[in-house]
């Protein structure tokens, strides 16, 4: 266990399976549906026998009734590939306290979310991979089922540092190309960019038949802009500082945020992405529980 994974939370959440909304293609059998037919106990359909089919799968009872050969097919259960894409741009270093560094930054929150999800997925035998999206694709660990890989992923999570500008749109395209088979792609970011820049990345992932989930991290002050004294805002991604009287622009700020959130919501709905806005003040265990329950079959 790493310090960003709480055993109690894992214990609470392990009772809820991590399911994908779409059929997955895995290497081994597992608890997730597969687009192919397999040997599970769950009946799927009948089909006509064609030469070459395994005769052991003929349904003799049906042959007896109809004098025709039918093959009895069953659902294939396979494992899940969980690909975690974590935004490590400078903006993810934001802390509610306004300090440059702190224990409650967005990246810390993302680390807890991603780490817990990785542990849960590995616990149910699924493969786990990690992609760190900074200015460029900084680090990528392909999804594997091994415990060594999990350890590798968790180590990498612990070492993540938020810095530089964001390169998430490009990272999504790269991830879509690099993840070879259907996977559950979980994106954890504050999405501080024009929503339209993300649209093509999400659509690319969906085109690859990935089940895409976005955890959008935002802090309450970033939305409500509840300040009453002049503030010098220092941009975490390197833009020049701004001395602003918050009262004078609060209304316009909120209006801009509202427009942005509506655009994000519309864009993710259009792209069939499971969008979840998360406030840093929320307990991440609750967020994950909500997420897992919503997906439970």
């Amino acid at each position, binding site marked *: 266990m790493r310090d960003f994974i709480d055993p109690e939370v894992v214990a609470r959440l392990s009772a809820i399976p991590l399911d994908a909304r779409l059929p997955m293609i895995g290497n081994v059998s597992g608890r997730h549906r597969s687009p192919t037919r397999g040997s599970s106990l769950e009946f799927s359909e009948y089909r006509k026998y064609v030469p070459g089919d395994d005769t052991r799968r003929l349904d003799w009872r049906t042959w007896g009734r109809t004098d025709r050969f039918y093959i009895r097919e069953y659902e294939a259960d396979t494992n899940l590939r969980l690909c975690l894409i974590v935004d490590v741009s400078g903006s993810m270093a934001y802390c509610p306290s306004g300090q440059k560094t702190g224990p409650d930054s967005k990246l810390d929150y993302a680390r807890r979310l991603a780490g817990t999800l990785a542990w849960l997925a590995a616990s149910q035998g699924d493969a786990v991979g990690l992609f760190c999206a900074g200015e460029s694709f900084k680090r990528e660990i392909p999804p594997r089922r091994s415990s060594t890989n999990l350890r590798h992923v968790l180590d990498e999570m612990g070492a993540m540092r938020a810095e530089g500008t964001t390169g998430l749109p490009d990272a999504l395209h790269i991830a879509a190309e690099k993840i070879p088979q259907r996977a559950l792609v979980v994106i954890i970011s504050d999405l501080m960019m024009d929503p339209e820049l993300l649209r093509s990345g999400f659509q690319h992932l969906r085109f690859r038949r990935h089940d895409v989930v976005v955890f959008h991290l935002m802090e309450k002050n970033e939305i409500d802009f509840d300040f009453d004294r002049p503030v010098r805002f220092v941009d975490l991604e390197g833009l020049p500082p701004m001395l602003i009287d918050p009262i004078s*622009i609060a209304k316009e700020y*909120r209006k801009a945020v509202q427009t942005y959130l509506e655009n994000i919501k519309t864009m993710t709905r259009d792209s069939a992405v499971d969008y979840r806005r998360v406030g840093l003040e929320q307990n991440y265990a609750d967020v994950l529980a909500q997420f897992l329950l919503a997906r439970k079959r």
Partner: protein
Amino acid sequence: MTFLQPLLLLAIPLIGLPILIHLINQNRHRTIHWAATMFLIQARKMATGMARLRYILILIARMLTIAGLIFAVSRPLSGGWLALTAGGVPDTTIIVLDRSVSMEHTDQGTGRSRRRTAIEKLSQLLQESASSTHLVLIDSVTKKPTKLDSASDLLESPLVQDSATASDIPSLLQAAADYVSENETGRTDVWVCSDLQASSWDASGGRWEALRSAFASRQGVRFNLLTYTDLPKHNVAVSLRNVHRRATADSAELVMDLKLTRTGDLSQPFRVPLTFVINGARTTTELEISGDTLQRNGHIISVDRDATKGWGRVELPQDGNPADNAFTFVYAEPDVHRTVIVADDPVAAEPFRIAAATSQQKNQNSEAIVLAPAQASQILWDSTAFIVWMAAMPDDATAAQLKSYVQSGRGLLFVPVAGLTAGEFDGFRWNEWKSADENSHFSVGQWRTDSDLLANTRSGSPLPVSRLQVRQYCPLTINATNQNQPGGEPGTQPPSAGTSTESGAGAADRIVSVLAQLDGGIPLLTRMSLGDGAYYFLGTRPEPEYSTMLNQGVVFYVMIQRAIAQGAAILGGASGRNCGTVPDDLMQQWTALDPESLEIVPSRRSLLPGVFQSGARQISLNRPLTEDDSQVVADEQLEQMFGTLDFVRIQDQSGQQSSLASEIWRLFLGLMIFALLAEAVLCLPDRSPSLAKPNQATSL
């Protein structure tokens, strides 16, 4: 604007407190490392104009709040004339009050005259705003500064009561200037309460320049003109002139020139009932007046043939000005206007004799006799109206008789004689004659046009004094017991024309005035008041070798006739005088002839119209006829009169109830509350619901 607590205005710099706090806040910002910079950039783009304006409005509202509070606690005073005055309570407040007849125009609704309205408002204003100031009243009757203990005394003072006199605003302002100069007053407010009547203000007179100079040399003198120029809706004034008795074959009649003057609506003819009261008998007649004036010369009223003397009055119904609705008169057999010329040289005295013996009016008997100085004892002191002394200065006995004669109210003119400059009279002595260069002459530079022997005519035209040319003049000096020398002595500065100086012991009764002076300030005609009369010194002679007085005979003749008329007015059996021109103590000895005059308290007899008797002499007192003139000073003239002096004009109306000043702290308190509300509205936070609530918030 005046403040009752002006010290609190020292807090005015606190108005800048919001700006200071704003600047401090700007420097006390905190630093936040921020992720959502993209929203800040968008918000700043959207909020550039409105947000800045809103912030400026908030700052202004906060400043107004503080300003309103400061001004409210400073207890500002104002009325219909906001920002009337500035700078707090003056050290001295001089009230120049016009008590003339025209100030008695009365508002029909409230019954308050212009004078009363002005006094009440001024009293209220001073009680509220300037209770600590030194109050000085200069009224148009006494023309003397009178200190008042408090503003409330204004309402009670007999010096603000009505009178039927005329006013001379320049002389009142001169008195104010003298008071300011003598008492070294600090910041001084001069309130002039007047109706701006043109005859009272004498806009074309030469005294305004001297007044401007006098006030301009004083710092902190400010004028507030409380003016009442609204014309009454309806007013008719009546006046009489040349009232005299004429005997006919079997009866007698009074002949008079009657004049009605109307102001207000002149579009329609108006029938006026005139009531004549003659020796107690009343008759009423109606006259129709169309236009603004009705002049009826030679109006005749029959009287008892045996009544060789008597009194009367003409009355009008009540209208806009009750003070011009009556005019009194007395009549008697015409007196002889007797003049005595005391001269060594009868030939030299001849011009004076002719001028004195030639009466202005047909029915007036005038006579002039020439006596040698040794015959001075033959002068009929009790019946002589005027004496011309053109000989050596009189001896002590004669001088004493002459002084007594002058003190009774009659005139005495000294004319210098070549070679006879020895001796003195009452401290005055002639010096050696001085001549102008050959082919040159002295011209008259200034002379008094407002009163006395060289005053303007009744129509306002000046006498042609400036055309006089003087070739020789005789300087006049005062001996050591007198403080001022009219001129002539080296190293002394003679007073200029139009100015008066008190001289020597008993100065209250001895006032030297230079009535005319030659170029260079050399006195030509000097007046020395003594008792009720005055004696004059003419600095030259009328003959051609001395001056052009005979060639320009108008000035000479008018001067002599006016001096005779002054004396005759004292001596005549029946005389008409203007109110205010007869000494109070003299009037108190007289008895009233009619019931109306009887109601007048003795101390005010000289100020109100009436008919009186003392022995065989009768006198009628009336308002000066210049008071019937409704012409007022134009704004441009007013600007010219005051020139660069600091003055504010406040136009008021008689009977108007609004006060000159009232406490207006409520106004500023209201302003403060309004500014507070505006600031609160501008600072209201955005009421849109919080967007921070995540779209899914279910928990385990």
